[in-house]
């Protein structure tokens, strides 16, 4: 607890500095954000979530009093190392393309006998979602250093990619926004926040390889599901349902486009 508090203090100090940087010259401010990011890398608060995620993974729970250690994340039951780098992927047992988070929910149901409805419905930043975010941090951390290798071999994987691409360009709502409005040009920003050009290998690779990430300004650990939900909020869209096909399709589009980039998780962000 004490440690978390200390880190909170760091977070506030950094966001204050980043705020000030807004008034400095443009390139300089982006440079200094980069510096803080580097400075924080040594003590990424995400490590705390990694540790609690590992504990959640290994501790028996649910009506079946089982741990998640036998969960098949795609590389065989119990293999966590490198699994995140190959997700989303098609799973035969569910006959679905799943991302890491939807797959963990499946394992909670089958191995632990947990009804996951409440986990799906819980708002972000409440205990149930925080557990899932901790698990996401642990699992993704076990792929750090591993190149992204998402398969498009199965017809359902290709279909998911195409659906994700179509949703990426799907314009709607009062602001006529699509993901593409903000993420489809090289080198642009909103205010001072740089926007990755997601349809390119470079943009998608740098984005996909650095989530889940600890968000310094919010003092929160965000998974990709949370990242996407907040972009949909800014897009003025209704709320995406956690682990819905729409969110998995977008993830499939970004992850497969980013193939080859090396996972650097957990990330740390503004």
């Amino acid at each position, binding site marked *: 607890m004490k440690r978390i508090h200390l880190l909170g203090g760091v977070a506030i100090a950094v966001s204050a500095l980043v705020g000030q940087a807004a008034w400095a*010259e443009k390139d300089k401010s982006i440079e200094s954000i980069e510096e803080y990011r580097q400075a924080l890398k040594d003590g990424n608060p995400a490590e705390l979530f990694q540790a609690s995620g590992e504990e959640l993974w290994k501790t028996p729970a649910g009506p079946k009093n089982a741990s998640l250690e036998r969960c098949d994340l795609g590389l065989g039951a119990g293999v966590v190392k490198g699994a995140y780098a190959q997700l989303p992927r098609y799973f035969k047992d569910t006959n679905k393309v799943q991302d890491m988070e939807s797959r963990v929910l499946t394992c909670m149901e089958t191995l632990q006998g947990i009804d996951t409805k409440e986990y799906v419905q819980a708002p972000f930043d409440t205990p149930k979602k925080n557990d899932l975010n901790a698990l996401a941090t642990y699992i993704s951390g076990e792929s750090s250093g591993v190149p992204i290798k998402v398969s498009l071999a199965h017809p359902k994987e290709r279909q998911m990619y195409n659906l994700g691409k179509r949703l990426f360009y799907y314009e*709607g709502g009062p602001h006529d926004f699509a993901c593409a409005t903000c993420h489809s040009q090289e080198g642009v920003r909103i205010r001072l926040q740089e926007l990755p050009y997601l349809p390119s290998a470079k943009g998608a690779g740098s984005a996909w390889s650095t989530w889940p990430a600890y968000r310094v300004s919010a003092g929160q650990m965000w998974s990709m599901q949370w990242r996407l939900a907040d972009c949909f909020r800014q897009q*003025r869209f209704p709320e995406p349902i956690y682990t819905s096909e729409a969110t998995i399709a977008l993830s499939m589009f970004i992850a497969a486009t980013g193939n080859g980039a090396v996972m650097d998780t957990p990330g740390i962000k503004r």
Partner: protein
Amino acid sequence: MKQTFVFSLVALTLVVAATPGHSADNSWGSGADDKTFDAMLQSGFKDRGIATVDRLKQDSTQKFCSDPVSAASPKMEKMRKKIEAENLASVKWPSDGKWLGDWKEGEKVAQSGKGLTWSDKADQVNGGNCYNCHQISPKEIAFGTIGPSLYNYGKIRGNSEEVLRTTWAKIFNAKSSNACSNMPRGGHMGIITEKQIQDVMALLLDPQSPVNQ
């Protein structure tokens, strides 16, 4: 409406079939796997606050612009012109005949990015989001770059009737001059009020505004 819709589908299909290199990749846009895509939208979202699922329904402009390769192709020139004309026809000109309001109020509208997300309230004052995408007053250096710089906007263009009209039309309905503009249709979609448009007009065009110093 319905006619536009049918026409755009036919036109899209034609382009996809006729453009070499594009035909190999007709696997994802409008016309490909429509039922699955619609089902995915239906099952993927829920109402939250003011951001309800009916926002997923597209008007004909949004639909056309959701396949950027097709929308930007030379074959679609006529369609783009048609969409621009439709959007221009929807522009409401200032009811009191006044083009310019108060640039100081306009600065506040340009600064604010608030409004219409699921964490906003229906009765709050929305912002114009302008600094998210544009450089405007030189005093604000935290500006985005999705749109062009508007610094010295009035100083460069003057404020002839023509400039006043085109600028009003752009802010009221950005798609009136560029079918698939990335800029929101501020007045058309009810994001900002007539008074707010008059105020940002002043920010861009009033000789006293810091934009034109």
